[in-house]
Every structure is written in C-alpha cells, then in structure tokens.
C-alpha cells in the first residue's frame, strides 16, 4: 500500500477567481497584509501498489489523464 498526496495548482498567470475572492474576503474580515491567495486542489490517494517508483509512475499518469487539467494547471506528487 502506498499513500500519496497530489497537489494541483493553477499555472502562473492563469486567473484564479476563487483566490481573488478569498483574498478580498480575508481583507474584509480584518486580516491585513495579505499579498496574494491562490487556490488549488489536493488529492490524498491510497494505492495498492507498494513499489514507490511504480506508484509514482501511475500517479503521474493519473495526473496527466484526469487529476490535472494540464492546459491551465501544474501538479506535484509526494509519496508516503
């Protein structure tokens, strides 16, 4: 069994309406000095695969095919 965390974030320069809204909401709640907020997604995935290299390769494929929209998003994978 392998536990992995995949983090998918918007590419630089791609508009993030959610992040923008959160930024101004935080301002409204009285938090000062917020430079910027960008929102992304996290996937916690449990795989039956036990070999880390093979697990990582599978996760990479999942990101390319489904988890990330590579047109506008980047992803990173952490195992364990």
């Amino acid at each position: 069994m392998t536990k992995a965390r995949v983090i998918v974030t918007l590419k630089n320069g791609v508009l993030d309406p959610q992040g923008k809204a959160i930024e101004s909401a935080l301002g409204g709640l009285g938090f000062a000095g917020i430079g910027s907020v960008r929102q992304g997604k996290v996937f916690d995935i449990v795989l039956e695969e036990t070999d880390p290299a093979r697990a990582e390769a599978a996760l990479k494929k999942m990101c390319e095919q489904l988890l990330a929209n590579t047109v506008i998003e980047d992803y990173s994978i952490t195992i364990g």
Partner: protein
Amino acid sequence: MKSAVIQLPGLNRDRDMIAALTKISGKAPVTVWQTETELPDVDLIVIPGGFSYGDYLRCGAIAARMPVMRAVADKAAKGVTVIGVCNGFQILLEAGLLPGALMRNASLKFVCREVKLEVANANTAFTRAYAQGQIIRCPVAHHDGNYFADAETLKRIEGNGQVVFRYAEGTNPNGSINDIAGVMNEAGNVLGMMPHPENLIESAHGGTDGRGLFESVLGIAA
C-alpha cells in the same frame, strides 16, 4: 407581515424571491445589502438563492461572514422567522445557524429539474399550509445540494422533527442523506432548503405547489 430579503453580490434568485413575496403577500419585501449591521423590524427574513461570492471557497462561506449575517443571527436568536433557499441554505449552514453541511451533488453535475417533495413535518411555521406527508412538486437548481450530517447530528435532527422536506418517490437529485431537502433549527424558526418554492407559485410557472411555504410563514390562509 413584513419581510426582508438579504442581498449579497452573486446572489441571483433575489429577484425571483422578491417577486414571489410581493405576489403572495401583496407587499414588496425590504431589501437589505450585505454591509448593513442592523435589520429593519420584520417578521420574516429570506436569504435567496444564487452564487454569493461566486460560491468560491465553499458555497455560502464568504457570504456567511459578511456583516449582515451577524444581524440575521441576532434576529434568529430572538425568534424571527428566517428562510434560506438554495444558496441561502448554504449560507445559513456556514453561519452555523443550521446543522449539517451541503456537499457537491453526487453526480458532480449541476442539476435543474422538477422533483417531488414530501412534507416530512407539517407541524412547523413553514409548512402549516401543507398536510403531513403531502407530496408537492418543486424545482431544484443547484450544484452543491448533497446534504450531509454526521450520524449523531442526523439522529438528533430526525428525532426532533427538524427534517421539514424530503425528496420523494426516488427523485433525490443530489445524493442527500436520508433524502433530506430542507431542515430547520431546533427552535423551529430557521429553515434551510435546497429546492425553489419561489419558482412554482403561479400558473405561469405551471403550478402553485410552492405557495404553501410562503402562505404558512406569512400567515395567509391557503
């Protein structure tokens, strides 16, 4: 009866709600902008549907933290009747005025269609115009209407009769636990529901099943 409709940027069924309240009560509700810290003296407060703050972060999350919601909470604590429909329901949950949470629809898709609702508790301020167990038609239109509560909470609200509406006859459009479509608080003065009774109140809508809710809270005999 005087009523107020809360307005926040991104809400978009506010006009529908204002029209419904006006048509049914014969009086236009007052509208209250999000920055107000005090509410006028009214008998009914409605938070309408839409996508407040784009539903960014979580549905209703940012809206629930706007100044006007503190005022709504104060009124609710004093026993004023509050209804949140769709996004309004999500806002009331995020504001902690109702139990549970609304998750993404099980289909993951936005759904707009007519469903059937069972009046699960007709003995409330919101449903007295309906009969217990009555099945009514009602449209839904949402992306995040999948009601969830942990086992303990669920047991409590079911036991207390806080479940006011359920999706009936296999029409649950979103995967809500126990087919829950609308819940109220323990005190019985705050209701949240996903379906849109305000869109089924006149012949132009193809039916008037939604009127009962408004007639109940406005004290208008059906």
